[in-house]
């Protein structure tokens, strides 16, 4: 009898997978889009950021009013990336984006330098423009260098060692390689959120189709007249939904990996492309958390889908789940993995986010793991019980 039940579960599972994978939409939404979307998104963002920076760094258009032909004016004119624009109305040109900033050097600038009193420079920029802000940073750094040169000359004239100005020197040493550390930090912020979103959204299409969809198409009633037990049918469907959810999550992970390692993308500016890696144990542990979350959400979504009268109604009930799941995930995604309080591991969804963060940082806190895995198993059991309850209720199954 048990053998027959298992066989039925397997028959239903295999049939559902075959049915779903013959649907082009499933492959498109569940596999192709998750693989393509992140590399594409981060490539476009990275490229536009690079283009933006290059535009400012290599073609910095400024307006310069320097009637006294000052030393700083000459210094600026020597900079190859600066393009001095003759502007009749600098304020308007700045607003219109024709120039990135406007500099006015007062006539007494060099006199003040010679007299060793503070010499001011007027710099106007558009603080609502990213390009103008970047230009301001570049010109400020030129002014810093120019000022340091002056100070060095003044001290030299007085025969004073310039090292007087730098009594302490900070030598930075990092736990991780610099690239690796930035990569891990970015990953510990983005990956948990992404995994939670995909744990919810991955099983959604399958759950909608195998619950409410089956009701709407009229395929559920004939199914219930067969010798297959309801629990076997439910388990077969549940496993198919979880599998599809996992495939979708794995596809998104592959997409994320490509996005991180691709050259010319957003991460290449910070990590230099494939600048870091995650160990096998970390991947396995993250995988277990993801599988458990996908199972819990899969069962919950199936229960809701069975309850719904139609495909549309199921979509209405299920869509808010993503938002509900994102709230606790967002609430914790900026937490520092090395200082997470224990109570976070008892908050649904937030606990998974925190645990994945710890894994990425190489932390394996058994207490946190025990609490989180305990809760995750409880979510799965409760969700499956709810789905079972729904599937055994006549008024739910025949609710049309």
């Amino acid at each position, binding site marked *: 009898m048990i053998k027959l039940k298992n066989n039925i579960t397997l*028959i239903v599972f295999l049939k559902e997978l075959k049915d779903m994978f013959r649907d082009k939409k499933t492959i498109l939404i569940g596999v192709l889009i998750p693989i393509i979307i992140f590399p594409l998104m981060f490539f476009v963002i990275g490229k536009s950021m690079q283009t933006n920076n290059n535009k400012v760094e290599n073609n910095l258009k400024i307006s310069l009013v320097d009637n006294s032909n000052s030393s700083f004016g000459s210094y600026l004119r020597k900079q190859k990336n600066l393009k001095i624009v003759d502007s009749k109305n600098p304020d308007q040109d700045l607003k219109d984006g024709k120039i990135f900033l406007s500099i006015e050097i007062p006539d007494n600038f060099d006199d003040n330098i010679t007299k060793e009193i503070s010499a001011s420079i007027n710099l106007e920029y558009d603080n609502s423009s990213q390009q103008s802000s970047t230009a301001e940073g570049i010109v400020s750094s030129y002014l810093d260098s120019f000022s340091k040169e002056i100070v060095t000359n003044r001290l030299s004239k007085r025969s004073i060692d310039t090292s007087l100005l730098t009594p302490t020197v900070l030598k930075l040493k990092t736990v991780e390689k610099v690239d690796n550390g930035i990569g891990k930090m970015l990953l510990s912020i983005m990956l948990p959120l992404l995994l939670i979103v995909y744990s919810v959204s991955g099983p959604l299409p399958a759950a909608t189709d195998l619950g409410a969809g089956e009701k709407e198409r009229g395929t559920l009633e004939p199914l219930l007249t067969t010798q297959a037990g309801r629990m076997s049918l439910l388990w077969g469907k549940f496993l198919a939904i979880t599998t599809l959810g996992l495939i979708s999550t794995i596809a998104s992970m592959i997409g994320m990996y490509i996005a991180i390692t691709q050259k010319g993308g957003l991460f290449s500016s910070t990590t230099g492309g494939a600048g870091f890696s995650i160990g096998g144990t970390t991947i396995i542990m993250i995988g277990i958390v993801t599988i458990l979350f996908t199972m819990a959400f899969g069962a919950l979504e199936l229960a809701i889908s069975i309850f719904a009268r139609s495909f549309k109604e199921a979509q209405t009930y299920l869509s808010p789940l993503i938002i509900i799941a994102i709230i606790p995930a967002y609430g914790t995604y900026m937490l520092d993995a090395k200082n997470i309080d224990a109570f976070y591991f008892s908050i649904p969804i937030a606990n998974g986010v925190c645990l994945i963060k710890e894994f990425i940082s190489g932390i394996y806190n058994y207490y946190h793991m025990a609490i989180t895995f305990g809760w995750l198993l409880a979510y799965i059991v409760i969700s499956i019980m709810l789905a079972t309850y729904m599937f055994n209720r006549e008024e739910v199954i025949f609710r049309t």
Partner: protein
Amino acid sequence: MFIYFGGGRMIEVTELSKVFKKITAVDNISFKVESGEILGLIGENGAGKTTTLRMLATMLRASSGTAKIEGYDINKEAYKVRGKIGILFGGEVGLYDRLTARENIRYFAELNGMSKEEISTSIDYLVKILEMEEYVDRRVGKFSRGMKQKVAIARSIVHNPTVMLFDEPTAGLDVTAARIVQDFIIKCKEKNNSIIFSSHSMQEVERICDRLVIIHKGKILEEGTVDYLKDKYQSSDMEEIFMKLVGDKIEK
């Protein structure tokens, strides 16, 4: 050896009731269907026909009373009952569009616990008698209603049931598709199956059924052969008899 449509015995319904919250959908009904007999279950929408068939098919649990299908109790031996019945629905026949006709039929055979050999023999046989050779390995999504109805028929009998339940199987079908179903019901009768056929069409039940049960608001109003009812109510028109019975009940 796998034999089709073999040796149906009987359906025995005893004081069967179904209550949904406060609504009594089926109210203490009793009837019998012998081997090789077609019982017509007629009534308006919401009369309790589908609920009765769903209880007999063990999809719904009876609130009280019981029924025996070939001696198996629907309340206590649901698993065995499901092995004895085949059910065909009207309207949307409920096929998986992305599976082929063969895969649809095989899926239901597998769920009924048949072996690979039995499935293969039975599908080959059904494909032949229902003339589905041309399209059995095509996905059913683009099939006509008639083709779909044939696949649904094959699916309902693939496990060799001896009791057949038809829930308005010709609803929404064109003449050709409806004729396929009617021919199939007559074949089931010839093979000695016990059959319950629910329908709205008086002409159809008059032509096919041996005996009729007229049901209204979950209760049986009248039962008997077509001739008996015509004689009793002094009318040759079954629709008139039905309206008289149901109309009387509404007035009361």
